[in-house]
Each structure stands twice: as C-alpha cells, then as structure tokens.
C-alpha cells in the first residue's frame, strides 16, 4: 500500500542530471590523465613483453613473453642498481625525517620573523633539483672545492669525492637532504601546530620534563604526519633521478646508479625499449605499493565529501 504511493525512483531524475554534469565536468581532466598516464603505463607493460631495440629495427618487435623480466632479474647491473636505490633511500629518508623533525620543532617555537624563516626554508624545496645538485656538486668538486678546502683546513685529507665509489654518496645524500628536508619540516610543522597546547600545560602541571613531554605527547601525536612524510619521501627517494644524473651520472662507473637512471640509459641511450620497459614496470610496481600504502594512510576520509 505504502509502496503504491511512493513511485519508484521518484526524484531520481535531477540527481541523474547532477551526476551527468559531474561526469561532464570531471571527464576532460580525467580523460587527459587517462591518455597521458594510464594508457602509457599499459603500453609500457605491453612493450615490456617484446623485444624492441630501436638501434636494430631489422629485428622487428617480436613477442618474447617474460624474457625481459628474466633478463632484468638476472642482470647484475640492475640488481646493484636496486641496491644503490635502497642505500640512497635509507640514508636520505632517515636523515630527512630526523633533520625535518628538528627543523619543525625549531620553527614551532619561532614567533618573530616567521615569514622570513618560512621563505628561507621553502627556497631549497622550490628551486629546480638539478640546480640544487649542481650547486652541491660545485661545493664538492675535487680537489679544490669548498668541502675539500674546509676539510684540509681542519687537517683532514679529503677524499676525491666523485671519483670514489663510497665517498660519492656523501654529496648525493647531502644534496637531497638539503633540498627536501624543508618539505618534511613543513609537513611536520603543520602536524605540530595541530597538537593542542593545553596537553603540554597539563604535562607541566604533572611535572613531566621536556624529554618526557616529547616522547609522551609530541611523538605519538605526530605519528600520522611522520607517516605521511615518510611515505612521500620514500616514494620520491625510490624514484631518484635528477640528483644522481647531475652529480655523478651514476659513477664512478655505475657505483651510484639507481634504478631510475639505469632504466633511463637503457631506454634513451641504448634504445633498448623492450628491456627498458620491463625495468620501468618493475619500478612502477614497487612505487605502486608505496602509493597504495599512502592512500590507506590518508584514509577513506580523504576521498569522501566534507572538509579535508
């Protein structure tokens, strides 16, 4: 009886109208993304199943199945590139989170000249990565660059930075830390400023010392921000390219070559598109897991309506 008086789907029409408008507005951008990002990634995958060498066009583009992947995992240069990427990620992300936390704590206390400080902190983040890398390379030039000169003055023997398979990591990591710590610091600062200051007052009343307050209040409440910063930085460090390309070119030899750089030279210097695509897919899959983790961390809320 009741159903008879409530026509099914009544009123749905204007929601449908709104939905249609929604799609119409969203589609151009989403279609563009699909065209320039999703379609290519599928193409990469397809390409990775073929032998495709632009220097040997007479070979054609035969389907080879998983052969490129087999080659990749058997390739010592790729495996060491993975290792280099891991080393770089670990060193850079650890230092960036540590330094970022310190800078954020310092900035949280700044009352005067906040704008100036913020500008100073933003500058390294905002300049082109290659510019940052060049500046640091200049400072670490051997034998007479600033870093070496400073070490000599301190009475130490400076290494030949970029010619040394181990020492070359130092300017690489330092440049990346200098460039990206500001971003981490700003994320963490936003997290710090969300912490209710009354908590510290309560802790003061309870007689908790500074260190105790830090471990009992600041760190736990900063965890979400730390996690977000960690995921973004880890993802970025995994994709590292610009810094290494500019500073060491992966050298000496291939001692500092990360996966992105190896993939790049496979593709655009050796023109081995099939094999290079297989490397690209592997990079993509790893990055995708970071992306999934980030999306989970940001939480469902980020994708539903309501203030972000």
């Amino acid at each position, binding site marked *: 009886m009741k159903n008879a008086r409530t026509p099914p789907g*009544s*009123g749905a029409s*204007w929601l449908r109208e709104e939905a249609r408008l929604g799609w119409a507005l969203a589609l151009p951008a989403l279609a563009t993304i699909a065209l320039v990002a999703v379609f290519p990634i599928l193409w990469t995958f397809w390409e990775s199943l073929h032998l495709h060498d632009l220097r040997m066009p007479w070979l054609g583009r035969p389907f080879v199945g998983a052969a490129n992947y087999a080659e990749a995992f058997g390739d010592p240069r790729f495996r060491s590139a993975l290792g280099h990427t891991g080393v770089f990620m670990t060193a850079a992300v650890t230092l960036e989170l540590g330094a970022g936390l310190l800078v954020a704590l310092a900035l949280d206390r700044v009352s005067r000249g906040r704008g100036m400080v913020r500008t100073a902190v933003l500058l390294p983040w905002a300049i082109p990565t290659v510019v940052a890398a060049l500046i640091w390379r200049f400072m670490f030039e051997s034998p007479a660059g600033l870093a070496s000169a400073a070490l000599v003055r301190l009475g130490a023997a400076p290494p030949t930075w970029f010619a040394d398979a181990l020492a070359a990591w130092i300017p690489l990591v330092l440049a990346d830390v200098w460039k990206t710590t500001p971003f981490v610091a700003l994320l963490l600062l936003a997290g710090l400023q969300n912490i209710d200051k009354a908590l510290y007052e309560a802790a003061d009343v309870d007689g908790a010392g500074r260190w105790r307050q830090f471990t009992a209040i600041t760190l736990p409440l900063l965890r979400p921000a730390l996690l977000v910063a960690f995921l973004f930085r880890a993802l970025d460090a995994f994709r590292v390219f610009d810094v290494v390309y500019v500073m060491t070119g992966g050298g000496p030899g291939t001692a500092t070559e990360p996966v992105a750089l190896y993939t790049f030279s496979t593709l655009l210097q050796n023109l081995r598109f099939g094999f290079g695509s297989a490397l690209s897919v592997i990079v993509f899959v790893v990055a995708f897991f970071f992306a999934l983790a980030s999306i989970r961390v940001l939480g469902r809320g980020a994708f539903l309506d309501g203030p972000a």
Partner: protein
Amino acid sequence: MASITLDQVSKTYPNGQTAARDLTIEIGDGELLVLVGPSGSGKSTVLRLVAGLELPTAGRILIDGRDVTAVPPQRRDLAMVFQSYALYPHKSVRENLAFGLRVRRVDAAEIDARVRLAAATLGIEALLDRKPAQLSGGQRQRVALGRAIVREPKAFLLDEPLSNLDPLLRVATRTELGLLHRRLAATMVYVTHDQEEAMTLGTRVAVMRNGAIEQIGPALALFRRPANTFVAGFVGSPAMNLWPGACRRLDGRARVASAVCSIDLDEAGQSVPDGAELVAGVRPHDIDLTSDGDVTGRVEIVEPLGPVTLVHLRVAGLPGEFVRVIVPSDARIGVDDQARFRIRRDRLHLFDGRTGRRLN
C-alpha cells in the same frame, strides 16, 4: 504563493542516519508553519527536502499540488534563509539582492525597483553598497531576508534565522517577521529549536523529534493538549511537571497514585483503565500554593521571573527532581519554607506510562 505538501516523506542519509520518518505535512497557501524540536531532530532536513537540496529516500513533495520531487532546487522557485545567512561575501548587498533576479533575466529597471522596495521594507537602503563583511549580525540577517523577499518566491523556508542574533534583537525581529508574514501573505516554513519562538510565531506548529512529527497543530492546542509526554515537556516554559504513577482504585474510586499526589479521577472527570501505568502532567501555572493543598514540599530554589516567581520544591518520594510551581510575584515564600500546594483538577494531563501518549 503556494501550498506545500509532504507525502509520506522519509530521508535516510548515506551514512545510515534517518533524519525524516514517513512525514506527511500539508502547509496551506499563506500559512506560516513552524517546525520546532531539539537540535538533531531533523528540522533542517525537512526544510532541505522541501527546498530540493536533499532528495527524499521515499515519498513525494508537492508544491501547489504538482509533484516536484524530481525538480532541482533552482527550478522550485522557493527562497531560503540560512542560519549562517550565506550571503555572497564577494557581492555588495545590492548585488546579493539582485542575484536571484539577474539569474531569472528580469530586466535591469525592474531589478532596481524591486531591490529598492525590498530594501525599504527591511530598512536597509543605506547598506546597499556595502559588502556583507561590513555589516553587523542584525544587518546581515535583514539582507538575507531581503534576498528572499525580493524574488517574490512561491514560499519562504527559514532555517533558524534568528538564532545568531542577541536576545533583544531576536525578540524584536521575531515580531517583525510575524508582521512581514501577514503583509506578504506568504507561505512560510520556519525552523527553530526555541519553543517560545515557535509559540509566538506559528499559526501552526509541528513538534519534531528524532525525524518524526510528534504533534502538529495550532500553538495553543499544543500547549493545552500536548499529544504525548515529549510535547508536554518541550512546549511551554517553565516545563510541565511530569510524574510517573499508576491508576489505582481506592474506595471504589479511580485515583492517580504517584509519588507526589493522589488525585481522584472521577472527581476530575477523567476516566482511565484500572491499574494502568501512567504519567501525570501538571504545568507549573496550574499548581496553587494554598494552606489546604494536597501535597507538601520544601522550597529549595526561588527564581523571581518578574511578573511571577518560579519555585522549585523538593517533595519526599520524588528524590531526583523538583516540582516546579509558579506563584504570584508577591507571594511570601523563602528557601527552606515548607509549602503546601494543590493541583488544579481540570488542568491535569494524563499520559500512558509506556507509550507516553495522551490519555485524557
């Protein structure tokens, strides 16, 4: 102007919250209906359903008999005054008023005339070139009203339009709103959580709780014959005394037996089935302090309200609550006095103890 009908309308939000339960309401042409209820009871939802800003999960909404459930808000020709006023911050007052007419492609001369008229009606001519940020709360409220009346819509929907004003201004604006309603002969649905506002404004008042309408009717009818304990407790200030009890037969006569009182129902002309659980309700105005009253209590709080005085009494057998009594302001009564009082038999409200429904 137009009539509005809600026909078995329900609304469940995507998060599972049901904010309107099978509501059927008819709002006549030119009527001012007030929706009143505690916060969260679904008043705004009903208004937004009528406006078209929300879509009902079931039921129909009709304007002038035409089913508009499927009509989007911009084509329903209703005006809404939001609690936050929602003035366009980047437009001047004049542009705020004119926007709805511009959208309808009314010609410039007429827009100008109508904006002037609306501004004159509300006394905001001097503000026309200001931006909302430069206005006081009361002025913003007027602009929001002006934006509604300038359009001459089919009906006005007002969502707590006075709740952001300070108390004095609120009362004054309330009176003005009543006048405005009469002058425009406009259909209005007015939402408020303030029962006093509801009583003074509404030709008809609907009391909502939990998405359902508890009672709908003329303000005085709600006051005199509340349909259930919720309405009884919500409408009227100070609130009605409600005492749980039962109907007992004593010496062959039915009596309400509660912790506070024992009243002969036959004498009071009421009939209730024997042994029934019930709630007896008495308004503080309907209790008289007398020397031969039927109950005794100790005065705990005395609140002079001006014309009358509200007295809170502690009565043995009703530990958690006070009995509220209104006495003349010249009554000589002080804290810790023992007071005797008598309940007016003909003003007794009886409600079913389990369902809360009115019995008499």
